[in-house]
């Protein structure tokens, strides 16, 4: 159950990160149109909401939100590290 909360939280922040100009263009070779970026972010928010449902299902109403907040931060940190550390390596190869 915890995994069902952790994965959407991670995916949400990956989407947020990949929707930004800074990380989208180097990876996909083109700018993401503003409307598409909005869509990516909306999906991201929906995933975060899913993670909250999963966390509450896993730990109940009291501890679920605490778990959700923790997983969201962990997802954000993991996305941050992955996006920046792998991007730098690619930049060096170029």
């Amino acid at each position: 159950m915890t995994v069902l909360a952790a994965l959407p939280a991670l995916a949400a922040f990956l989407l947020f990160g990949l929707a930004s100009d800074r990380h989208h263009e180097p990876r996909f070779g083109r700018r993401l149109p503003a409307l598409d970026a909005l869509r990516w972010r909306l999906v991201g928010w929906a995933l975060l909401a899913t993670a909250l449902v999963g966390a509450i299902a896993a730990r109940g109403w009291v501890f679920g939100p605490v778990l959700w907040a923790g997983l969201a931060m962990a997802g954000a940190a993991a996305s941050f590290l992955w996006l920046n550390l792998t991007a730098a390596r690619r930049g060096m190869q170029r």
Partner: protein
Amino acid sequence: MDVDLGWGSVVKKGFRQSQSTLHTWSGLLLGWVLFIIFVAGTAAYWREPLNRWMRPEAPRVERPVLAMKAAQRFLARKAPDAKTWFITVPTVEGPGTYVFWVPQPDPDAPKGRHRGRRRDTSALVDATGVPVARETRGGDFFYRFHFDLHYMPVIWARWLVGVAAMMMLVAILTGIVTHKKIFKDFFTLRRDKGQRSWLDGHNASAVLGLPFHLMITYTGLVTLATMLMPWATVANYADSTKLFTTLFPTAGEVVRVGHPALLVDLEALVRNGERQLGGPIGFIEVAEPGDAAARITMTGASRASLSTYGTRVAYDGVTGRLLWRSPPPNGAVTTYGAMIGLHAGRFGDLTLRWLYFFCGLGGTVMVASGLVLWTVKRREKLPDPLHPPLGFRIVERLNIAVVAGFPLGCAAFFLANRLLPLATPDRAEREITMLFAAWGSAALAALVLRPKQSWAALLGATAIGLMTVIACDLLVLRPGLGQWIAVSDWPMATVDAVLLVLAIGLAWTARRVARHRPRVLKPRAIRTPTNKALLAEAVAAE
């Protein structure tokens, strides 16, 4: 001190700039205290596992109930006539059962607070009922140090920690205002760009963990609230004992009758208490054990609910009859308890505790990078980089003394735990002395050596110290790391694994610092316009 405080320009530069000034100085002045609070607090999330890891001889608690009964037998031998026994119900995480007892009052004894040494009336009993040999404060040291510090009266320490926490709250809130682009630049890390990289790193550690940082600072202040803001209680309660019994009601005083009687079996009673309270029992108080009037009061474990304060039940200590149940706690107590629970994360299972631990690490990095950023930002603007002003040099060296020095002290603490002979007198205090001796030497090195040398030397020494601890566990300690892995004692092996990861991280950082060649600073005039624009942006973002 040739440092521009920026006070004069506050009005001129407007709200954001004033917040920036506040952020810089509230963060800097108590940043050093905040750093050690963060390190100790982060370690304290593993308080019980560390308590056990620092007493490796104690056999693993497989069945807490049996360990508790062993502790009861110990107390019956050691203090059969005590006025009260206190038993902390053991868990599988910890090294055994913490017990302490209050002897019968001696009518001839002089009145005073210090009637006996705490050590004479307390013990840590292992799962077989024997006091644990290795005398140490263990993980409890980090827990107490987190808010009581050391070598100073507790009340001063708590005021200092309270002021630091307030400054932290100020720094967080002004930081959000100051770096208005933090949410926009959420995923930005510009690497190998000097000041920009430090700023991005500081922002990232702050923003990625922002919910935690806000929560931990606010709830941390709440734990000290009755000391920092005593007016509500002082106005309503002349006697603090009365306040305490109002908030945390008890079943009342027990009067000894003088007829000996056998104490009821604790195991069955604990089972009943768990049913009554709907969760595990954390703490048992036995009043007048061995007397016909004996009474047993049980408190629900902190880990059972978000609120750290459990409810209580009291039983007749001879018949085992249920005597009393604490009324449901009022809203204020529950709120207060929930905030402390949220702060300490005692309710957390392993997943949540790891998340808390990583958040704590993030907070530590945030404070450390903020402190370093102060010097990085100013170094680029120094009129003469070879002769920086006194204020700059003080901050630069204090940063090294604290950010690199305190972790070295912690490594020395762990090393002392492994190397000091078990029979050393005052062993627990010696370990702590080693921490401060190593930290003091580090501070001295920071004062004497050039900053770059001392950063690399101290970070490297900490890495070597931690590696030595792991080597001890692997080669000298019996049972040691090899056995823990062989019998799948993962909590013990994990401590070594975490220390290894920290050591590798510190060694890597030390190597980077040692190999770092600062970019040759070009005079401002020939900076390219883009660089200039970048710089202006950086200054504005501050």
